[in-house]
């Protein structure tokens, strides 16, 4: 296989492309936030004690640092990806039916069926402000780079994405960068 086939023309053309700004499907609600906090076991009073939190420089209750990543969920009245997934494949792993759903304005999906194995190559997050209950997020994702490296187990393709997350007032909350490794 030549390197031209490994990083396809479609993939090369995607470098630098940016999604539309996408609004989260939900706002940050007290109940979703409460369930999130139970699961991470961090009872920091800035997350629930208004009297305490308003004395801090946050000026009131704030959401957990990474909560902005948890406010886009499948809406009612949309096809059920779990039922659909199992209908086609009893061994469906349900990953594709999980978490954040595809949204209008997403980057077009790239055909990478020739390098189907994917590994999480790590991520980095920069924080600017914590989300508040009642806010939505607006996020944009950009493909920063796609490049090839020779690893111990052969050739690998690295994809670097960057997502900028703002609240619905346009204030910057966080920027996350992720690397996925495919072969």
């Amino acid at each position: 296989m030549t390197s031209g086939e490994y990083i396809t023309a479609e993939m090369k053309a995607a470098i630098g492309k940016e999604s539309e700004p996408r609004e989260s499907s939900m706002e940050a609600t007290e109940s979703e936030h409460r369930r999130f906090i139970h699961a991470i076991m961090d009872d920091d009073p800035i997350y629930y004690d208004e009297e305490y939190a308003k004395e801090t420089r946050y000026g009131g209750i704030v959401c957990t640092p990474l909560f902005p990543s948890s406010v886009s969920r499948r809406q009612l009245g949309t096809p059920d990806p779990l039922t659909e997934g199992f209908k086609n494949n009893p061994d469906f792993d349900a990953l594709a039916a999980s978490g954040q759903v595809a949204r209008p304005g997403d980057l077009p999906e790239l055909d990478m069926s020739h390098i189907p194995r994917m590994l999480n190559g790590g991520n980095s997050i920069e924080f600017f402000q914590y989300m508040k209950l009642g806010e939505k997020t607006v996020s944009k994702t950009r493909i920063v780079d796609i490049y090839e490296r020779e690893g111990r187990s052969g050739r690998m393709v690295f994809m670097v994405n960057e997502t900028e997350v703002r609240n619905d007032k346009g204030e910057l909350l966080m920027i996350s960068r992720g690397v996925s490794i495919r072969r």
Partner: protein
Amino acid sequence: MATQTEKKQVYFDDVEVGMEIPSVIKGPMTQAHIMRWSASQENWHRIHYDHPFALDHEKLPNVLINGSWKQQVMSQLIKDWAGLEGWMWKIAFQHRSMNVPGDTLTAWGKVLERYERDGLGIVELEIGLRNQDGVEACPGSATAVLPIRGGRPVPYPFVPPQG
């Protein structure tokens, strides 16, 4: 109950290269804890709760603790240390090993470098998440911004230092 206000704010002046910051410990983790996180995330990936599927189909040693959950613990580590007057600016790490029910996970951090910039105290740390056997799962780095005694407050919303 000790609250954050009763906790002492850490100042840049008190930080030394090589010092370890207070760790955050979670566990022992159980399948129920994994389910609670997965449900909160609407993450139905079967490797997190379907034991036969994880072993027989995916050839895993057990159901797995979510990488997204580990990310929460790593961010709590730096958020707690920086305190109400400081700021967790950056965290970065990789996912190097799997964690399973029975694991007790310790998020740890060690100061690599400290410098002043634009009137703020910048601290670079090495961070990670070890299990009870000392196996490192999430090697990485973090940048915390701390107030300097007598200096300007760390801005909130955070504005990165200039220069």
